[in-house]
């Protein structure tokens, strides 16, 4: 139960980060199963960057809107 709560905590900590990452992983798995193995690696790579960027950018937008 505690493990599930920890995992849920990870997901709700930042929904954007978790959902983009999850989509990237699913796409990578599908692409790789379609024998596009190198593209699969690229999707994971790109997914990491986009997920991080969107998550942190959301935080600085919140900060900017608060001070306007």
């Amino acid at each position, binding site marked *: 139960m505690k493990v599930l709560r920890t*995992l849920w905590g*990870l997901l709700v*900590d*930042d929904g954007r*980060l*978790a959902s983009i*990452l999850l989509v990237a*992983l699913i796409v*990578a*798995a599908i692409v*790789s*199963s379609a024998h596009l*193995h*190198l593209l*699969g*690696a690229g999707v*994971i*790579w790109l997914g*990491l*960057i986009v*997920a*991080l*960027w969107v*998550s*942190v*950018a959301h*935080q*600085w937008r919140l*900060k*900017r809107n*608060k*001070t*306007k």
Partner: protein
Amino acid sequence: MNGFALGSTLLGTGVEFIEALTIVLAVGAVRGFKSALLGALAAVVLLAVLVGIIGAPLVSVMHILWLQMIIGLFMLLFGIRWLRKAILRYAGLKALHNEAESYQKELERQKAAGKSGGSFDRFAFATTFGGTFLEGLEAIFIVLTFGLSSHSMSSAILGALIATVVVVLLGVAARRPLSTIPENTMKFVVGVMLTAFGSFWLGESFRVTWPQGELSVVYLVATLVLVSLLLVARAKRVVASSQANIDDHSVEVHGR
């Protein structure tokens, strides 16, 4: 003695052991070495028992892809969460962790709970257990492959033993310098490491083709560091301009 089997196993298992050592050192430096080392030791003992019971057929018995998927997902989720928090702290979007204050709080919490310090850290244990188990399993595959193909299992085992001693000595030497690194920097490094290893293993479990194999972990680390530095620089500019807005506003209010 077979030089080819010894050399190949020494290099092959050396790479795997260094990867495991990186995880143990990084997690140990942030969460405490006691639980981190216990996790690694538990993985080594379990692997030794498995090899003792099953022997060479272990290669076909263990489904490494499932292990990579489960351990990789666990590491990726924890790693990227830490990395995000470290970026936010560097950029000033989140308050820096006050180490002295949190140490005092932890001490008080343990006193209230009637515990005597050095508590067991499940996260550190699980992370180093997973990492060491996976890398150890790969090292066993290397030993078995080279040992069986060269008909010289003793040379392959000797190569792995030498690699073990070298990597353990490296770990002992690197432990002290690591303890002097600030907490947020250490968390940043651990976040990058766990994210890189986690995504690499998840990719392996999906059978993606990583360019230049395990060297891709280095490329992933480099990409994550670069993106993080860009994010910190950009976020710092936003924080600075927001602060300037607040200052302008307060000057206007006081001027009236």
